[in-house]
Protein backbone atom coordinates (compact mmCIF):
# COMPACT_ATOMS: atom_id res chain seq x y z
CA UNK A 1 0.00 0.00 0.00
CA UNK A 2 2.72 2.42 0.98
CA UNK A 3 4.55 1.54 -2.22
CA UNK A 4 1.51 2.61 -4.18
CA UNK A 5 1.44 5.93 -2.31
CA UNK A 6 5.11 6.39 -3.07
CA UNK A 7 4.41 5.73 -6.70
CA UNK A 8 1.55 8.22 -6.77
CA UNK A 9 3.66 10.83 -5.03
CA UNK A 10 6.45 10.19 -7.52
CA UNK A 11 3.94 10.44 -10.34
CA UNK A 12 2.62 13.73 -9.01
CA UNK A 13 6.05 15.28 -8.73
CA UNK A 14 6.95 13.95 -12.18
CA UNK A 15 3.79 15.46 -13.60
CA UNK A 16 4.60 18.81 -12.06
CA UNK A 17 8.12 18.61 -13.42
CA UNK A 18 6.79 17.84 -16.86
CA UNK A 19 4.27 20.66 -16.62
CA UNK A 20 7.05 23.11 -15.78
CA UNK A 21 9.06 21.71 -18.64
CA UNK A 22 6.06 22.13 -20.89
CA UNK A 23 5.80 25.79 -19.96
CA UNK A 24 9.49 26.34 -20.54
CA UNK A 25 9.23 24.53 -23.86
CA UNK A 26 6.42 26.83 -24.92
CA UNK A 27 8.55 29.85 -24.07
CA UNK A 28 11.55 28.57 -26.02
CA UNK A 29 9.46 27.45 -28.98
CA UNK A 30 7.73 30.83 -28.91
CA UNK A 31 11.08 32.51 -29.22
CA UNK A 32 11.91 30.31 -32.19
CA UNK A 33 8.48 30.92 -33.76
CA UNK A 34 8.83 34.70 -33.41
CA UNK A 35 10.36 35.21 -36.87
CA UNK A 36 7.49 33.33 -38.54
CA UNK A 37 4.89 35.34 -36.64
CA UNK A 38 6.56 38.59 -37.67
CA UNK A 39 6.79 37.31 -41.25
CA UNK A 40 3.09 36.70 -41.66
CA UNK A 41 1.99 39.81 -39.78
CA UNK A 42 0.93 42.60 -42.12
CA UNK A 43 3.73 44.98 -42.90
CA UNK A 44 2.73 48.43 -41.62
CA UNK A 45 2.55 51.02 -44.38
CA UNK A 46 5.37 53.52 -44.04
CA UNK A 47 4.44 57.07 -43.06
CA UNK A 48 4.17 58.95 -46.36
CA UNK A 49 5.23 62.23 -44.78
CA UNK A 50 8.99 62.34 -44.38
CA UNK A 51 10.97 63.88 -41.57
CA UNK A 52 10.08 67.35 -42.76
CA UNK A 53 6.36 66.49 -42.69
CA UNK A 54 6.11 66.66 -46.45
CA UNK A 55 5.45 63.99 -49.07
CA UNK A 56 6.30 64.26 -52.75
CA UNK A 57 3.35 64.03 -55.12
CA UNK A 58 3.96 61.42 -57.81
CA UNK A 59 2.47 61.69 -61.27
CA UNK A 60 1.25 65.29 -61.10
CA UNK A 61 3.16 68.43 -62.09
CA UNK A 62 2.12 72.08 -61.60
CA UNK A 63 1.21 72.27 -65.28
CA UNK A 64 -1.56 69.72 -64.67
CA UNK A 65 -3.51 72.18 -62.52
CA UNK A 66 -2.59 75.40 -64.24
CA UNK A 67 -6.15 76.50 -64.93
CA UNK A 68 -9.40 76.27 -62.93
CA UNK A 69 -11.27 73.07 -63.72
CA UNK A 70 -8.11 71.03 -64.23
CA UNK A 71 -7.38 68.11 -61.95
CA UNK A 72 -5.48 64.84 -61.88
CA UNK A 73 -5.03 61.68 -59.86
CA UNK A 74 -1.64 60.78 -58.49
CA UNK A 75 0.08 59.28 -55.48
CA UNK A 76 2.01 60.28 -52.38
CA UNK A 77 3.93 57.74 -50.35
CA UNK A 78 1.91 54.57 -50.92
CA UNK A 79 -1.46 56.33 -51.02
CA UNK A 80 -3.50 57.89 -53.80
CA UNK A 81 -4.61 61.52 -54.05
CA UNK A 82 -6.42 63.94 -56.36
CA UNK A 83 -5.07 67.40 -57.03
CA UNK A 84 -7.14 70.07 -58.76
CA UNK A 85 -7.76 73.81 -59.18
CA UNK A 86 -11.20 75.06 -58.14
CA UNK A 87 -13.24 77.60 -60.17
CA UNK A 88 -12.21 80.33 -57.75
CA UNK A 89 -8.55 79.65 -58.59
CA UNK A 90 -7.51 78.00 -55.32
CA UNK A 91 -5.80 74.62 -55.46
CA UNK A 92 -6.96 71.59 -53.55
CA UNK A 93 -5.54 68.19 -52.71
CA UNK A 94 -7.49 65.33 -51.20
CA UNK A 95 -6.52 61.79 -50.18
CA UNK A 96 -8.17 59.59 -52.80
CA UNK A 97 -9.42 56.86 -50.47
CA UNK A 98 -13.24 56.94 -50.53
CA UNK A 99 -14.62 56.85 -47.00
CA UNK A 100 -17.25 54.27 -48.00
CA UNK A 101 -15.33 51.18 -49.11
CA UNK A 102 -11.84 52.47 -49.87
CA UNK A 103 -11.88 52.78 -53.67
CA UNK A 104 -9.84 55.55 -55.28
CA UNK A 105 -11.99 58.53 -56.21
CA UNK A 106 -11.69 60.50 -59.47
CA UNK A 107 -11.75 64.20 -60.28
CA UNK A 108 -14.74 65.02 -62.46
CA UNK A 109 -14.49 68.71 -63.27
CA UNK A 110 -16.73 70.38 -60.73
CA UNK A 111 -16.98 67.53 -58.28
CA UNK A 112 -15.26 64.36 -57.23
CA UNK A 113 -16.85 60.97 -57.67
CA UNK A 114 -16.27 57.40 -56.65
CA UNK A 115 -17.08 54.87 -59.36
CA UNK A 116 -17.48 51.95 -57.04
CA UNK A 117 -20.84 52.80 -55.52
CA UNK A 118 -21.63 56.24 -56.91
CA UNK A 119 -20.46 58.37 -54.00
CA UNK A 120 -20.10 62.11 -54.71
CA UNK A 121 -17.91 64.73 -53.03
CA UNK A 122 -17.66 68.48 -53.61
CA UNK A 123 -14.38 70.26 -54.23
CA UNK A 124 -13.79 70.80 -50.51
CA UNK A 125 -13.92 67.04 -50.03
CA UNK A 126 -17.28 67.05 -48.30
CA UNK A 127 -19.42 64.00 -48.93
CA UNK A 128 -22.57 65.34 -50.66
CA UNK A 129 -24.35 62.31 -52.06
CA UNK A 130 -24.30 58.52 -52.05
CA UNK A 131 -22.93 56.02 -49.55
CA UNK A 132 -19.76 57.80 -48.25
CA UNK A 133 -20.28 58.58 -44.55
CA UNK A 134 -17.42 61.04 -44.10
CA UNK A 135 -15.53 63.68 -46.11
CA UNK A 136 -12.26 62.91 -47.86
CA UNK A 137 -9.09 63.70 -45.92
CA UNK A 138 -7.77 67.05 -47.09
CA UNK A 139 -4.06 67.65 -47.73
CA UNK A 140 -2.09 70.86 -47.87
CA UNK A 141 -0.59 71.34 -51.32
CA UNK A 142 2.73 73.17 -51.61
CA UNK A 143 4.96 73.79 -54.56
CA UNK A 144 8.75 74.03 -54.29
CA UNK A 145 11.15 74.32 -57.24
CA UNK A 146 8.41 73.24 -59.63
CA UNK A 147 7.63 70.07 -57.69
CA UNK A 148 4.39 69.44 -55.84
CA UNK A 149 4.34 68.26 -52.25
CA UNK A 150 1.57 67.63 -49.77
CA UNK A 151 1.59 68.10 -46.04
CA UNK A 152 -0.68 66.97 -43.26
CA UNK A 153 -3.80 68.98 -42.35
CA UNK A 154 -6.11 68.50 -39.38
CA UNK A 155 -9.26 66.72 -40.68
CA UNK A 156 -12.50 68.69 -41.31
CA UNK A 157 -15.38 68.06 -38.97
CA UNK A 158 -18.04 66.10 -40.85
Amino acid sequence: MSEHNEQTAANKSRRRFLALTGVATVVWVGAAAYPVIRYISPIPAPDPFGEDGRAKVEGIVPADILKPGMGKSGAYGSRGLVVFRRPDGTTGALDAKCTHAGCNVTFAGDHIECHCHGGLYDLTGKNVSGPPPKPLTPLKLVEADGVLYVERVKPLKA
Partner: protein
Amino acid sequence: MNYPVWDLPFLGSGIVVAIIAVIHVLISHFAVGGGAFLFVAEWWSGNDPDGDRIRAWLHKFLTFFLVFTTVFGAITGVGIWFSIQLASPEATSLLIHQFVFAWAAEWVVFLAELTILYFYYYGWKANSRRMQVFLSGAYFVISWFSLFIIVGILGFMLTPGNWTLENPSVYEGFFNPTYWPMLFGRTLIMFLLAGLGGLVIASRIEHEAFKTRIVHFCVKWVIPAAFLIPIFAYWYWTALPENTVKLVTGGVTGVMGGKMESITTYAILLSVSGAVIMLSALLLAIRPQALTRAAAVALLLVALLGIMGGEFFREMARKPYVVYGYLYSNSLWKHKADEPGYLAKPYFEASRWDPPVEALSPQHGEWLFRLQCANCHTLNGYRSLTTRTVNWSGEFGYSWLDQTMPTQGVMPPFQGSREDKAALSAYLISLQSEGEKQTASEILAVLKAKEVAKLEKEAAVPSPAVANDPVPAKESPENQPDVQPTGEGVLP
Protein backbone atom coordinates in the same frame (compact mmCIF):
# COMPACT_ATOMS: atom_id res chain seq x y z
CA MET B 1 52.63 32.17 -44.46
CA ASN B 2 53.13 35.67 -45.72
CA TYR B 3 54.83 37.31 -42.82
CA PRO B 4 53.68 39.42 -41.12
CA VAL B 5 50.13 38.92 -42.27
CA TRP B 6 48.41 35.58 -41.79
CA ASP B 7 47.10 35.00 -45.29
CA LEU B 8 44.27 32.47 -45.44
CA PRO B 9 42.66 32.66 -48.87
CA PHE B 10 39.19 31.17 -48.63
CA LEU B 11 38.29 31.15 -44.96
CA GLY B 12 40.11 34.12 -43.55
CA SER B 13 41.83 34.23 -40.18
CA GLY B 14 38.63 35.15 -38.36
CA ILE B 15 36.78 32.02 -39.42
CA VAL B 16 39.70 29.81 -38.48
CA VAL B 17 39.66 31.32 -34.99
CA ALA B 18 35.88 30.84 -34.98
CA ILE B 19 36.03 27.15 -35.89
CA ILE B 20 38.65 26.40 -33.25
CA ALA B 21 36.91 28.51 -30.65
CA VAL B 22 33.39 27.17 -31.15
CA ILE B 23 34.66 23.60 -30.79
CA HIS B 24 36.65 24.67 -27.75
CA VAL B 25 33.60 26.25 -26.12
CA LEU B 26 31.64 23.02 -26.59
CA ILE B 27 34.44 20.97 -25.08
CA SER B 28 35.45 23.30 -22.27
CA HIS B 29 31.88 23.87 -21.16
CA PHE B 30 31.24 20.14 -21.28
CA ALA B 31 34.41 19.60 -19.30
CA VAL B 32 33.36 21.85 -16.43
CA GLY B 33 29.73 20.74 -16.47
CA GLY B 34 30.87 17.17 -16.66
CA GLY B 35 32.80 17.71 -13.45
CA ALA B 36 29.64 18.70 -11.66
CA PHE B 37 27.88 15.77 -13.29
CA LEU B 38 30.51 13.34 -12.03
CA PHE B 39 30.38 14.76 -8.54
CA VAL B 40 26.60 14.54 -8.26
CA ALA B 41 26.57 11.07 -9.85
CA GLU B 42 29.22 9.85 -7.44
CA TRP B 43 27.22 11.15 -4.54
CA TRP B 44 24.01 9.64 -5.97
CA SER B 45 25.62 6.23 -6.47
CA GLY B 46 26.73 6.25 -2.85
CA ASN B 47 23.16 6.63 -1.66
CA ASP B 48 21.37 4.44 -4.18
CA PRO B 49 20.80 0.66 -3.77
CA ASP B 50 21.80 0.23 -7.42
CA GLY B 51 25.01 2.18 -6.77
CA ASP B 52 27.42 -0.32 -8.28
CA ARG B 53 25.64 -0.39 -11.60
CA ILE B 54 25.49 3.40 -11.63
CA ARG B 55 29.18 3.61 -10.90
CA ALA B 56 29.96 1.10 -13.65
CA TRP B 57 28.02 3.25 -16.09
CA LEU B 58 29.72 6.37 -14.74
CA HIS B 59 33.06 4.84 -15.55
CA LYS B 60 32.00 4.54 -19.20
CA PHE B 61 30.97 8.18 -19.09
CA LEU B 62 34.24 9.16 -17.47
CA THR B 63 36.33 7.40 -20.11
CA PHE B 64 34.54 9.22 -22.89
CA PHE B 65 34.75 12.44 -20.89
CA LEU B 66 38.45 12.16 -20.14
CA VAL B 67 39.55 11.43 -23.68
CA PHE B 68 37.17 13.86 -25.33
CA THR B 69 37.80 16.85 -23.09
CA THR B 70 41.47 16.54 -22.35
CA VAL B 71 42.61 15.73 -25.86
CA PHE B 72 40.36 18.03 -27.85
CA GLY B 73 40.22 20.62 -25.13
CA ALA B 74 43.97 20.93 -25.09
CA ILE B 75 44.28 20.94 -28.86
CA THR B 76 41.65 23.58 -29.39
CA GLY B 77 42.67 25.62 -26.38
CA VAL B 78 46.23 25.91 -27.59
CA GLY B 79 44.78 26.33 -31.07
CA ILE B 80 43.01 29.45 -29.88
CA TRP B 81 46.28 30.85 -28.57
CA PHE B 82 48.05 30.24 -31.87
CA SER B 83 45.28 31.54 -34.05
CA ILE B 84 44.41 34.71 -32.17
CA GLN B 85 48.05 35.75 -32.02
CA LEU B 86 48.33 35.40 -35.76
CA ALA B 87 44.96 36.91 -36.53
CA SER B 88 45.16 39.91 -34.24
CA PRO B 89 48.54 40.44 -32.57
CA GLU B 90 47.72 43.95 -31.41
CA ALA B 91 44.58 42.88 -29.59
CA THR B 92 46.27 39.83 -28.09
CA SER B 93 49.08 42.03 -26.88
CA LEU B 94 46.63 44.38 -25.21
CA LEU B 95 44.81 41.55 -23.50
CA ILE B 96 48.00 39.93 -22.30
CA HIS B 97 49.40 43.14 -20.93
CA GLN B 98 46.19 44.00 -19.17
CA PHE B 99 45.39 40.62 -17.73
CA VAL B 100 48.75 38.93 -17.41
CA PHE B 101 48.01 37.44 -13.98
CA ALA B 102 44.61 36.25 -15.12
CA TRP B 103 46.21 34.35 -18.00
CA ALA B 104 48.82 32.90 -15.68
CA ALA B 105 46.19 31.83 -13.19
CA GLU B 106 44.24 30.19 -16.00
CA TRP B 107 47.19 27.96 -16.87
CA VAL B 108 47.64 27.02 -13.23
CA VAL B 109 43.99 26.11 -13.06
CA PHE B 110 44.31 23.92 -16.17
CA LEU B 111 47.27 22.11 -14.69
CA ALA B 112 45.52 21.55 -11.39
CA GLU B 113 42.28 20.31 -12.90
CA LEU B 114 44.04 17.86 -15.20
CA THR B 115 46.10 16.48 -12.35
CA ILE B 116 43.02 15.94 -10.21
CA LEU B 117 41.17 14.38 -13.11
CA TYR B 118 43.93 11.84 -13.68
CA PHE B 119 44.05 10.98 -9.98
CA TYR B 120 40.31 10.51 -10.15
CA TYR B 121 40.41 8.31 -13.23
CA TYR B 122 43.36 6.12 -12.40
CA GLY B 123 42.30 5.81 -8.79
CA TRP B 124 38.85 4.63 -9.76
CA LYS B 125 39.24 1.18 -8.19
CA ALA B 126 41.94 1.92 -5.59
CA ASN B 127 40.59 5.10 -4.03
CA SER B 128 37.95 5.14 -1.36
CA ARG B 129 34.46 6.32 -2.15
CA ARG B 130 35.00 9.45 -0.09
CA MET B 131 38.18 10.24 -1.99
CA GLN B 132 36.42 9.84 -5.31
CA VAL B 133 33.60 12.11 -4.26
CA PHE B 134 36.13 14.63 -3.03
CA LEU B 135 38.25 14.48 -6.19
CA SER B 136 35.29 14.92 -8.51
CA GLY B 137 34.04 17.85 -6.48
CA ALA B 138 37.49 19.42 -6.41
CA TYR B 139 37.79 18.93 -10.14
CA PHE B 140 34.52 20.74 -10.69
CA VAL B 141 35.37 23.68 -8.43
CA ILE B 142 38.83 24.18 -9.89
CA SER B 143 37.73 23.81 -13.49
CA TRP B 144 34.88 26.24 -12.83
CA PHE B 145 37.55 28.74 -11.89
CA SER B 146 38.88 28.57 -15.40
CA LEU B 147 35.48 29.91 -16.46
CA PHE B 148 35.59 32.54 -13.73
CA ILE B 149 38.83 33.85 -15.17
CA ILE B 150 38.26 33.60 -18.89
CA VAL B 151 34.87 35.33 -18.78
CA GLY B 152 36.55 38.42 -17.36
CA ILE B 153 38.80 38.68 -20.40
CA LEU B 154 36.15 37.72 -22.91
CA GLY B 155 33.57 40.09 -21.51
CA PHE B 156 36.13 42.89 -21.41
CA MET B 157 36.46 42.73 -25.18
CA LEU B 158 32.80 43.53 -25.73
CA THR B 159 32.08 45.73 -22.72
CA PRO B 160 35.22 47.23 -21.19
CA GLY B 161 32.97 48.96 -18.68
CA ASN B 162 34.72 51.53 -16.55
CA TRP B 163 38.15 50.53 -17.82
CA THR B 164 39.70 53.32 -19.89
CA LEU B 165 43.04 53.79 -21.60
CA GLU B 166 43.93 56.61 -19.26
CA ASN B 167 42.86 54.67 -16.20
CA PRO B 168 43.28 51.00 -17.11
CA SER B 169 41.98 49.42 -13.93
CA VAL B 170 42.31 45.65 -14.18
CA TYR B 171 39.54 45.22 -11.64
CA GLU B 172 37.10 47.37 -13.63
CA GLY B 173 38.03 45.70 -16.87
CA PHE B 174 37.72 42.23 -15.44
CA PHE B 175 34.39 42.64 -13.65
CA ASN B 176 32.76 44.34 -16.60
CA PRO B 177 29.03 44.70 -17.48
CA THR B 178 28.74 41.41 -19.37
CA TYR B 179 30.82 39.47 -16.87
CA TRP B 180 28.13 38.35 -14.46
CA PRO B 181 25.44 37.40 -16.98
CA MET B 182 28.05 35.42 -18.93
CA LEU B 183 29.40 33.74 -15.81
CA PHE B 184 26.03 32.46 -14.67
CA GLY B 185 24.69 31.87 -18.16
CA ARG B 186 27.71 29.83 -19.20
CA THR B 187 27.65 27.82 -15.99
CA LEU B 188 24.10 26.82 -16.85
CA ILE B 189 25.20 25.96 -20.39
CA MET B 190 27.84 23.74 -18.83
CA PHE B 191 25.26 21.78 -16.88
CA LEU B 192 23.15 21.46 -20.00
CA LEU B 193 26.03 20.09 -22.04
CA ALA B 194 26.95 17.65 -19.30
CA GLY B 195 23.42 16.28 -19.47
CA LEU B 196 23.64 15.94 -23.24
CA GLY B 197 26.98 14.18 -22.98
CA GLY B 198 25.47 11.81 -20.44
CA LEU B 199 22.64 11.07 -22.84
CA VAL B 200 25.14 10.03 -25.52
CA ILE B 201 26.63 7.44 -23.19
CA ALA B 202 23.20 6.44 -21.89
CA SER B 203 21.85 5.72 -25.35
CA ARG B 204 23.38 2.26 -25.62
CA ILE B 205 22.23 0.95 -22.25
CA GLU B 206 20.41 -2.31 -22.85
CA HIS B 207 18.64 -2.80 -19.53
CA GLU B 208 15.40 -0.90 -19.96
CA ALA B 209 14.64 0.13 -16.39
CA PHE B 210 18.22 1.24 -15.77
CA LYS B 211 18.26 3.19 -19.01
CA THR B 212 15.14 5.02 -17.85
CA ARG B 213 16.81 6.00 -14.57
CA ILE B 214 19.97 7.26 -16.24
CA VAL B 215 18.03 9.15 -18.92
CA HIS B 216 15.96 10.82 -16.22
CA PHE B 217 19.14 11.74 -14.37
CA CYS B 218 20.68 13.30 -17.48
CA VAL B 219 17.51 15.12 -18.49
CA LYS B 220 17.44 16.79 -15.07
CA TRP B 221 20.70 18.49 -16.02
CA VAL B 222 19.27 19.74 -19.31
CA ILE B 223 15.81 21.01 -18.52
CA PRO B 224 16.36 23.35 -15.55
CA ALA B 225 19.37 24.85 -17.33
CA ALA B 226 17.40 25.39 -20.53
CA PHE B 227 14.71 26.97 -18.41
CA LEU B 228 17.01 29.45 -16.66
CA ILE B 229 19.39 30.36 -19.49
CA PRO B 230 16.97 32.89 -21.11
CA ILE B 231 17.00 34.93 -17.92
CA PHE B 232 20.74 35.43 -18.11
CA ALA B 233 20.57 35.86 -21.87
CA TYR B 234 18.21 38.75 -21.26
CA TRP B 235 20.55 40.21 -18.63
CA TYR B 236 23.37 39.92 -21.18
CA TRP B 237 21.19 41.64 -23.77
CA THR B 238 20.66 44.64 -21.50
CA ALA B 239 24.42 45.03 -21.08
CA LEU B 240 25.14 45.17 -24.79
CA PRO B 241 26.36 48.37 -26.46
CA GLU B 242 23.60 50.53 -27.94
CA ASN B 243 24.83 50.22 -31.50
CA THR B 244 24.66 46.45 -31.26
CA VAL B 245 21.04 46.50 -30.16
CA LYS B 246 20.22 48.73 -33.12
CA LEU B 247 21.95 46.34 -35.49
CA VAL B 248 20.14 43.29 -34.19
CA THR B 249 16.67 44.79 -34.16
CA GLY B 250 17.22 46.65 -37.41
CA GLY B 251 18.48 43.50 -39.04
CA VAL B 252 15.07 41.91 -39.14
CA THR B 253 14.56 42.91 -42.75
CA GLY B 254 17.12 42.56 -45.48
CA VAL B 255 20.03 44.86 -45.82
CA MET B 256 22.77 45.19 -48.37
CA GLY B 257 21.67 43.09 -51.26
CA GLY B 258 18.99 41.10 -49.50
CA LYS B 259 20.94 39.31 -46.83
CA MET B 260 19.29 39.74 -43.50
CA GLU B 261 21.68 41.15 -40.99
CA SER B 262 23.54 38.02 -40.00
CA ILE B 263 23.78 39.03 -36.36
CA THR B 264 20.00 38.70 -36.16
CA THR B 265 20.11 35.30 -37.80
CA TYR B 266 22.70 34.05 -35.34
CA ALA B 267 20.46 35.15 -32.50
CA ILE B 268 17.66 33.18 -34.10
CA LEU B 269 19.97 30.17 -34.42
CA LEU B 270 20.64 30.36 -30.70
CA SER B 271 16.96 30.50 -29.78
CA VAL B 272 16.01 27.75 -32.23
CA SER B 273 18.73 25.48 -30.81
CA GLY B 274 17.49 26.12 -27.31
CA ALA B 275 13.93 25.35 -28.36
CA VAL B 276 15.03 22.11 -29.97
CA ILE B 277 17.02 20.99 -26.94
CA MET B 278 14.11 21.86 -24.69
CA LEU B 279 11.59 19.95 -26.84
CA SER B 280 13.84 16.93 -27.16
CA ALA B 281 14.59 16.82 -23.46
CA LEU B 282 10.86 16.93 -22.76
CA LEU B 283 10.31 14.12 -25.25
CA LEU B 284 13.03 12.00 -23.65
CA ALA B 285 11.70 12.68 -20.18
CA ILE B 286 8.39 11.23 -21.29
CA ARG B 287 9.78 8.37 -23.39
CA PRO B 288 13.30 7.49 -22.23
CA GLN B 289 13.43 4.36 -24.36
CA ALA B 290 13.28 6.50 -27.49
CA LEU B 291 16.87 7.61 -26.90
CA THR B 292 19.06 6.21 -29.66
CA ARG B 293 22.73 7.03 -30.15
CA ALA B 294 21.87 8.92 -33.31
CA ALA B 295 19.35 11.05 -31.42
CA ALA B 296 21.80 11.80 -28.63
CA VAL B 297 24.57 12.76 -31.05
CA ALA B 298 22.08 14.89 -32.96
CA LEU B 299 21.28 16.80 -29.77
CA LEU B 300 24.97 17.36 -29.10
CA LEU B 301 25.31 18.71 -32.63
CA VAL B 302 22.35 20.99 -31.98
CA ALA B 303 24.16 22.30 -28.94
CA LEU B 304 27.25 22.87 -31.07
CA LEU B 305 25.21 24.86 -33.58
CA GLY B 306 23.60 26.80 -30.75
CA ILE B 307 27.03 27.64 -29.41
CA MET B 308 28.02 28.71 -32.89
CA GLY B 309 24.98 30.99 -32.97
CA GLY B 310 25.80 32.50 -29.59
CA GLU B 311 29.50 32.97 -30.15
CA PHE B 312 29.08 34.34 -33.68
CA PHE B 313 26.48 36.71 -32.25
CA ARG B 314 28.87 37.87 -29.58
CA GLU B 315 31.65 38.41 -32.09
CA MET B 316 29.42 40.37 -34.43
CA ALA B 317 28.01 42.39 -31.57
CA ARG B 318 31.48 43.76 -31.07
CA LYS B 319 32.00 45.05 -34.60
CA PRO B 320 33.76 47.20 -35.62
CA TYR B 321 35.94 46.73 -32.59
CA VAL B 322 38.00 43.93 -31.18
CA VAL B 323 38.10 45.83 -27.88
CA TYR B 324 34.95 47.90 -27.88
CA GLY B 325 35.52 51.60 -28.14
CA TYR B 326 39.30 51.32 -28.12
CA LEU B 327 40.75 49.00 -30.72
CA TYR B 328 39.20 48.35 -34.11
CA SER B 329 39.15 44.85 -35.59
CA ASN B 330 41.98 45.68 -37.95
CA SER B 331 44.29 46.87 -35.16
CA LEU B 332 43.56 50.55 -35.69
CA TRP B 333 43.50 52.36 -32.36
CA LYS B 334 40.40 54.50 -31.94
CA HIS B 335 42.19 57.19 -29.99
CA LYS B 336 44.68 57.52 -32.84
CA ALA B 337 41.93 57.52 -35.46
CA ASP B 338 40.23 60.35 -33.60
CA GLU B 339 43.35 62.48 -33.86
CA PRO B 340 42.86 65.10 -36.57
CA GLY B 341 44.65 64.23 -39.77
CA TYR B 342 45.67 60.75 -38.63
CA LEU B 343 43.29 58.91 -40.93
CA ALA B 344 44.51 60.81 -43.98
CA LYS B 345 48.13 59.82 -43.42
CA PRO B 346 49.62 57.33 -45.85
CA TYR B 347 48.83 53.93 -44.42
CA PHE B 348 52.28 52.45 -44.54
CA GLU B 349 53.65 55.29 -42.43
CA ALA B 350 51.27 54.46 -39.61
CA SER B 351 51.14 50.68 -39.90
CA ARG B 352 53.53 48.32 -38.22
CA TRP B 353 54.68 46.85 -41.49
CA ASP B 354 55.87 48.92 -44.42
CA PRO B 355 55.94 46.56 -47.36
CA PRO B 356 58.35 47.22 -50.19
CA VAL B 357 55.81 48.13 -52.85
CA GLU B 358 55.76 50.65 -55.62
CA ALA B 359 53.22 53.39 -54.95
CA LEU B 360 49.96 53.04 -56.87
CA SER B 361 50.88 49.57 -58.15
CA PRO B 362 48.49 46.61 -57.80
CA GLN B 363 50.76 45.32 -55.02
CA HIS B 364 50.20 48.59 -53.18
CA GLY B 365 46.47 47.89 -53.24
CA GLU B 366 46.99 44.24 -52.38
CA TRP B 367 49.04 45.05 -49.28
CA LEU B 368 46.44 47.56 -48.19
CA PHE B 369 43.88 44.80 -48.42
CA ARG B 370 46.09 42.41 -46.46
CA LEU B 371 46.90 44.81 -43.67
CA GLN B 372 43.65 46.68 -43.33
CA CYS B 373 40.84 44.51 -44.65
CA ALA B 374 41.94 40.88 -44.33
CA ASN B 375 41.09 40.70 -40.64
CA CYS B 376 37.43 40.44 -41.56
CA HIS B 377 37.26 39.93 -45.31
CA THR B 378 38.62 37.48 -47.80
CA LEU B 379 38.83 38.17 -51.50
CA ASN B 380 36.76 35.27 -52.84
CA GLY B 381 35.57 33.39 -49.80
CA TYR B 382 34.05 34.44 -46.50
CA ARG B 383 32.61 37.96 -46.63
CA SER B 384 34.00 38.10 -50.13
CA LEU B 385 35.17 41.49 -51.32
CA THR B 386 34.84 40.53 -54.97
CA THR B 387 31.13 39.90 -54.40
CA ARG B 388 30.73 43.19 -52.63
CA THR B 389 32.52 45.26 -55.29
CA VAL B 390 30.88 43.78 -58.37
CA ASN B 391 29.63 47.05 -59.78
CA TRP B 392 32.44 49.27 -58.64
CA SER B 393 34.11 51.72 -60.93
CA GLY B 394 37.41 53.18 -59.88
CA GLU B 395 35.92 56.52 -58.84
CA PHE B 396 33.03 54.92 -57.07
CA GLY B 397 35.39 52.73 -55.10
CA TYR B 398 37.43 55.75 -54.14
CA SER B 399 34.43 57.71 -52.97
CA TRP B 400 33.12 54.70 -51.10
CA LEU B 401 36.35 54.36 -49.16
CA ASP B 402 36.46 58.11 -48.69
CA GLN B 403 32.90 58.89 -47.65
CA THR B 404 30.70 55.82 -47.13
CA MET B 405 33.07 53.63 -45.16
CA PRO B 406 33.39 55.92 -42.12
CA THR B 407 29.60 55.88 -41.70
CA GLN B 408 29.24 52.12 -42.12
CA GLY B 409 28.71 51.32 -38.46
CA VAL B 410 30.14 47.82 -38.62
CA MET B 411 33.46 48.76 -40.20
CA PRO B 412 36.43 50.78 -38.99
CA PRO B 413 37.12 54.05 -40.79
CA PHE B 414 39.48 53.75 -43.69
CA GLN B 415 42.99 54.82 -42.86
CA GLY B 416 45.06 56.12 -45.76
CA SER B 417 45.86 58.90 -48.16
CA ARG B 418 44.32 59.63 -51.55
CA GLU B 419 46.89 57.40 -53.17
CA ASP B 420 45.99 54.57 -50.79
CA LYS B 421 42.29 54.84 -51.60
CA ALA B 422 42.96 54.91 -55.32
CA ALA B 423 45.34 51.97 -55.10
CA LEU B 424 42.93 49.83 -53.10
CA SER B 425 40.02 50.67 -55.36
CA ALA B 426 42.05 49.85 -58.44
CA TYR B 427 43.18 46.57 -56.92
CA LEU B 428 39.67 45.48 -56.00
CA ILE B 429 38.21 46.18 -59.42
CA SER B 430 41.14 44.41 -61.04
CA LEU B 431 39.91 41.20 -59.40
CA GLN B 432 36.54 41.34 -61.14
CA SER B 433 36.03 39.11 -64.15
CA GLU B 434 33.85 41.66 -65.91
CA GLY B 435 33.84 45.41 -66.06
CA GLU B 436 36.39 48.05 -66.86
CA LYS B 437 39.71 48.04 -65.16
CA GLN B 438 41.46 51.20 -64.07
CA THR B 439 44.86 51.68 -62.56
CA ALA B 440 45.28 53.77 -59.46
CA SER B 441 46.94 56.57 -61.39
CA GLU B 442 44.02 56.65 -63.80
CA ILE B 443 41.59 56.96 -60.94
CA LEU B 444 43.52 59.80 -59.40
CA ALA B 445 43.73 61.53 -62.74
CA VAL B 446 39.97 61.30 -63.25
CA LEU B 447 39.29 62.63 -59.78
CA LYS B 448 41.75 65.45 -60.28
CA ALA B 449 40.08 66.42 -63.52
CA LYS B 450 36.68 66.46 -61.83
CA GLU B 451 37.96 68.65 -59.03
CA VAL B 452 39.51 71.09 -61.47
CA ALA B 453 36.26 71.26 -63.44
CA LYS B 454 34.28 71.85 -60.27
CA LEU B 455 36.58 74.68 -59.19
CA GLU B 456 36.34 76.30 -62.58
CA LYS B 457 32.58 76.13 -62.48
CA GLU B 458 32.40 77.71 -59.05
CA ALA B 459 34.76 80.46 -60.08
CA ALA B 460 32.53 81.43 -63.02
CA VAL B 461 29.40 83.57 -62.55
CA PRO B 462 26.68 81.44 -60.92
CA SER B 463 23.99 80.63 -63.52
CA PRO B 464 20.29 81.64 -62.96
CA ALA B 465 17.80 79.13 -61.54
CA VAL B 466 16.98 76.61 -64.19
CA ALA B 467 13.33 76.55 -65.37
CA ASN B 468 11.36 73.71 -63.89
CA ASP B 469 11.49 70.56 -65.90
CA PRO B 470 8.39 68.41 -65.48
CA VAL B 471 9.06 65.81 -62.91
CA PRO B 472 9.03 62.45 -64.74
CA ALA B 473 6.48 60.08 -63.29
CA LYS B 474 8.23 57.49 -61.18
CA GLU B 475 7.11 53.91 -61.17
CA SER B 476 5.53 52.65 -58.01
CA PRO B 477 8.02 51.55 -55.38
CA GLU B 478 7.26 47.91 -55.99
CA ASN B 479 8.55 48.00 -59.54
CA GLN B 480 11.71 49.93 -59.03
CA PRO B 481 14.06 48.90 -56.28
CA ASP B 482 15.99 51.63 -54.56
CA VAL B 483 19.29 51.89 -56.32
CA GLN B 484 21.61 52.60 -53.44
CA PRO B 485 25.28 52.38 -54.23
CA THR B 486 26.02 50.52 -51.10
CA GLY B 487 28.83 48.39 -52.35
CA GLU B 488 27.51 45.24 -50.78
CA GLY B 489 25.36 42.76 -52.61
CA VAL B 490 24.92 42.52 -56.31
CA LEU B 491 21.77 44.48 -57.07
CA PRO B 492 22.27 47.09 -59.77
